[in-house]
């Protein structure tokens, strides 16, 4: 490395305008070659990235879904739960013993396991690390979960139950 530096320094001492032009054109050539190489690599990498990202993009269009109609879900017995898919992610519709309807995301906010509604305790429990949520509001009650479960709007009619993003 230092050898080259010395050479360059010596070159500087007897620098002619010709030498400077040559060095400039070499620098320009290297920059152009580098840019061409980068463009070439990008042209190869782009289709591969898009190819591998295809399922992600499909899931994104599913995430855009803002409401789901659950046919015949109005017949859900008291004190029971219906698991369903809200876009790409699991969600739950709870029909509490007191007759109230609650729609919640079923993805634990701790590390993403699917949570479970326990009707006896009337609570939501995550078996992975023991997180507990309130089954009416989705609020994180105990254990590791840092955030509440997302609460959805629920509308019950004669043909089914509509669940909407709040």
């Amino acid at each position, binding site marked *: *490395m*230092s*050898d080259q530096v010395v050479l360059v320094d010596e070159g500087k001492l007897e620098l002619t305008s010709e030498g400077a032009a040559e060095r400039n054109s070499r620098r320009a050539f290297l920059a152009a070659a580098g840019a061409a190489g980068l463009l070439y690599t990008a042209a190869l990498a782009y*289709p*591969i990235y*898009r*190819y*591998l*990202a*295809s399922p992600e*993009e499909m899931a994104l269009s599913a995430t855009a879904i803002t409401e789901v109609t659950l046919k015949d879900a109005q017949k859900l017995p008291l004190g029971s739960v219906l698991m369903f898919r809200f876009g790409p992610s699991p969600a739950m519709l709870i029909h509490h013993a007191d007759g109230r309807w609650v729609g919640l995301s079923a993805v634990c906010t701790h590390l993403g396991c699917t949570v479970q509604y326990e009707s006896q305790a009337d609570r939501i429990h995550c078996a992975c690390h023991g997180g507990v949520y309130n089954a009416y509001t989705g609020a994180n009650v105990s254990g590791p979960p840092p955030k509440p479960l997302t609460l959805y709007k629920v509308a019950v009619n004669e043909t089914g139950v509509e669940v909407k993003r709040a």
Partner: protein
Amino acid sequence: MSTKTIAVPKTAAGAVYDWVDERLGLSELAAFARHKTVPVHAQSFWYYWGGISLFLFLVQCFTGVLLLVYYRPGVEAYESVRQITFVMHFGWLIRSAHAWSANLLIFAILVHMFSVYFMKAYRKPREFGWLSGMALLGLASVFGFSGYLLPMDELSYFATKVGLQIPMAIPWIGPMVASMLRGGPEVSEFTVQRFFALHVVVLPALFLPLLGFHLWLVQRYGNAVPPSEEVKPLRERKSIPFMPNFLRKDLAMWLISLNILALLASVFPWALGRQADSLVPAPAGIHPEWYFMSPFEMLKLLGNVLPGEFGEIAGILLFTLGIGLWILIPFYDIKRESGQRARAAHYFGLLAVFALLATTVIGYWTIR
């Protein structure tokens, strides 16, 4: 700059290099690479074809893994290829590149093989290079045959059906061998499943060590020179250093190959036919891939001369004999000077090229 007497503080990269070098002997490798040379003569162009084959094989590994991300063998085979081709972004391009590269790879290997043959590069001490090369070509054609079925469209279905008739002609064990390969009496989802296992696990597991052996031999013995160069005295022969002169040219060839491949794959995307259905008659004009056209046509021509089962068995025997003679060339074309025997091998090679080209042309001619 650094002398042995004074401990000059090294750069971090230098220190890492020294640490690794001490354990892995990188500088020995570098010294070896510095001394490696490649002969320069009128036939030097043919030296690139082994490297081009290697590059296209690497392309096959890379695009193959990408296809593996979405491909599903078994009953869903066609549906998954349809999804790759029409649903996944640029899936058509990846699949097209894999198919085109497979064809270019077979072509490059054939060019490499014939150039080695005519340069007589199979002679002592390079016999194992020739033998391992022939085995690699054999594996490459099984790669081609098994990969052709995986999309499970009309063409792949009938090609596999017809292709598996060839082992059928082996006396006694033929039917058993064919149904073992097929996984039952008919080409079905079981056939796709086992061809898939062959294509992505068994063949790579055989191919890679063999390729390593082949490349190691090339490093050990270097490039052979053709007989016309061999007769010249050593000081009249020219050569260039491998590092970086030949390597630079080699990489330029790789880049050209990649550009040709990209052009072919994007301008002529590989088609996907209709889903295989044994009840739909074979489409008109169906024919084997170009690299199987010649043996297919030879068997057909022989079948015209000697009809029936006798012709089939005679065809297989004649084929085995021809390929056997070809593979064993290093053991009977051994004279170093270009004498009578050497010329006989040369004519045998020309005959083989002529027979391959002629039967391929006849094959394509008679489709129409």
